[in-house]
């Protein structure tokens, strides 16, 4: 009986040890990732390949890197959660919910969700010559003038870049990022 009990304990130890080892293995990406999770990570990648002009005081480490959001949503919550303890450009990240368009001037990056056309046009008209990197994920936004527009293709995330709009804003995007993008232009001459 004692022997049986000892065997049982040894067996349990082996099982639990195996579980511990399994959980301790190097982390690897699980099979499926929700789309919004990947999109939030792309924000940092885009910033890594973007250069802000000196006038934007991007090098001032005492001030935060500001991401502007227009409304509360599941995706905005995910952005907040992802960047709450991260840095971009070696700057602490601050999330700012915009009450009006003019507050966008305080941002280095702005995420534009699906809005009515005129709301998007008004926002882009205000930001077009300012070094504020605009990111969207709605079909057609690239052609409207959003700098980087994310989309899903064949179950993977892709992005399009409106190079003309980027140049007008004073930002510079590295060719290393442009190489992965689909380059789009404005629908109408602006």
């Amino acid at each position: 009986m004692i022997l049986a009990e000892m065997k049982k304990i040894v067996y349990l130890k082996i099982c639990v040890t195996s579980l511990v080892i399994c959980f301790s293995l190097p982390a690897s990406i699980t099979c499926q990732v929700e789309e919004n999770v990947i999109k939030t990570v792309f924000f940092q990648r885009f910033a890594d390949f973007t250069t802000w002009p000196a006038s934007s005081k991007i090098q001032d480490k005492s001030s935060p890197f500001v991401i502007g959001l227009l409304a509360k949503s599941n995706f905005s919550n995910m952005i907040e959660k992802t960047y709450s303890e991260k840095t971009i450009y070696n700057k602490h990240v601050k999330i700012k919910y915009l009450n009006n368009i003019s507050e966008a001037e305080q941002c280095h990056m702005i995420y534009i969700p699906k809005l009515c056309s005129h709301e998007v046009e008004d926002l882009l008209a205000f930001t077009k010559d300012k070094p504020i990197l605009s990111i969207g994920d709605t079909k057609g936004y690239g052609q409207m003038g959003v700098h980087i527009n994310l989309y899903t293709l064949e179950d993977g995330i892709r992005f399009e870049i409106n190079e003309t709009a980027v140049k007008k804003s004073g930002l510079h995007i590295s060719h290393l990022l442009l190489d992965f993008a689909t380059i789009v232009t404005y629908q109408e001459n602006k």
Partner: protein
Amino acid sequence: MAITQMKTLLLSALICTSIYAQPDTDELSKLSIEELMRVEVITPGKFEQENWKASGKVFIIDQWMIKDRGYKDLLEALRDIPFFQVQSEFGHWTKGGIINLRGHRSGDSGNNKFLVLIDGTKISDDAEEGLYMGMNSFPLNDVKQIEIVYGPNSTLYGRDAYAAMINIITRTAEYAEAGFSYGTYDSQNIFAGLNKKFSSDLTGNINFSQYLSDEQDPRNISVTYLNRHIFPNAPFTENFYRASRNSRLNLGLKYRGLKLNYILFDLEGSETYGGNPDFYLTDYSTQTKLINQVLQASYETRITSDLSTEAYFNYKNYELDPSTANLYTEDFNRGLISADSIEQIDPLFGYGGRKYYYFRTMAYKTGVKLVSNLLDKLTNVSGADVNYVYGIPVISAGKGMPPITTEKQRDALEHYIRNGDLFTEFNYELSDNLNIALGARADFNSNFENTFMPRLAINTRFSNNIIKIILSKGYLAPSITQSYFSSLNTFSLITPNSDLRPEKISGAEAEWMYLWNNSHISANVFYNKLKDGIIESIPTGETAEVVIGNKKYIVPVLKSQNVSNGNRRGFGLELRNSYIDNKLIITANYSLIAGEDKINQNNGSVIIVPVDENLNSTHTLNLGALMKYDRFSLYASAQWFSKRKIKSHHSTTLYSEFLDNEGYLNFDPVLLVNINFRVNKIFNGVSLYSKVTNLLDKEYYGQSITANWGSPKILQNLRRIEAGFEYSF
């Protein structure tokens, strides 16, 4: 002391677990842009969008479901979904995977009541055989998604979209994977696939998979073996092998809008009695060998921002290997007709001869499709195609006669069919919440009457509800075998009937769905009216005197006829709900099927056969639970089918002992429980899985055919245990 140690270990495990359970973004942040673009994503709301857009009841099986549930082939995937019932896993001539759908039984020739497509290309036989391509012939390792659209769908997809359309969509994202599994009865699955983007314009893919199995333990005298009253004498009763070998090769190339694709299915199945372990070189056997090839070429281009077009050409060659044969005990030691060619093909022919079978379908199809945005919210899909089909029905020269191997023999048996069709469907968004689809199709055929198939679908949504109403028609062309097959046996003379008309179906259907977060509940009702149903091999009322060997027989004359009208109706409920942040997903579906066939008799009377007396279970229930934690997933499912029965012709044969007093073959209700455990990407892309099918080891039966040969009662899948790995490069 031991208890303290155990507590310590458990606490360590918990700590490790909680450390490991960190946000996904931390891991993803370490990836490069290119690596991030390769991560496969799931889109929230995609299920809702796909259901909203579809103008029919749709069920989608995505690649995550395929992996989590351990589906290896299409048969396994279809088991779990509403309204499908497995009629036989090991069909006539050992061919597997025959299913019934919404009370529509597959014909004696196989799965012919629904259309199977791969990436939009018809894979179902163009001579309407549905023959010998069991649902277990379709492996799923390179599949992105399976879309099942219920109901008649002939408007967009043509004939054969009678009860449903199943479209298997292959993966297009870059990947490189390989895998192997081993299981009970020496079952092995092996696959390897690669999809490579060489440049922005050029993509290539290659995919191979093979399934091998004894399907049972050859060393034991199985129930199936015992059910066969006709079996050879010793020494050929030493072992009983029942085996399958299904292979599939897929090659594809895409350059800008041009796509080329080649698919080869190489299928083999046998039942072998004997001491020879090489189960395809047999002492005594029933053996089927089939090679199906599909070549697809298409070119797609956008003409304007509102108009795109696709031109396509498909060539298909589906062929039984001429060595496909039955061997009959009555032929044992009988006199032979010998020929050099026969001895070369079959060195064991001298034991008594075989009855060789052959069939072939060659089809050439070309067409064009236009997709246009006519107005802001009005789109149209239109097209036309022509199909040239050269079909040889399932044919045999007779017992002891030579196989059909020469073109001269085949030319004498071949039939030529031309088919042309025009189709169009308009889709109009009246508002964000109301969509109407209206379409029609006209088919013109050289061998049977022309058909016209209209379709109307109305989709509406409000709050979290989607409601659909669908009215549609479909048809099923008579198969080459139904029209031209002839066969002489000691118990019947089957004669051709080239005057067969297409079977027709009219459908009305309504579905309601309520969605919330990643969950949904839905209810569905349908009614199908059937006309000109073909019943195969029914007595004409005449008899014939025939000579077989040196004996005379008086046998009934049978032929396929359009003698059946009837209906199918049903109701279904589905539920999907997720808990604990999507870590536990519960799925359930219940299906009720009713209806009857009214079969006109030669004497003017009508026999009414209810669906539940025609090998369909009235009630089916599928339950599934998927538990996911990090890289682990455990899926458990239970399937319950109510009783079913069928009137049998075997009341005067050796199999009469299977029948009840009224001449019915009865099948008891069955509960099947399956488990799949999976660990994803443990190290360097290796995933492991282990699966138990029919955990409770229930012995249950199916039936493949109602003809007078072979056992009408076929043992279905016994408990199987399987383990395997997949490697993503």
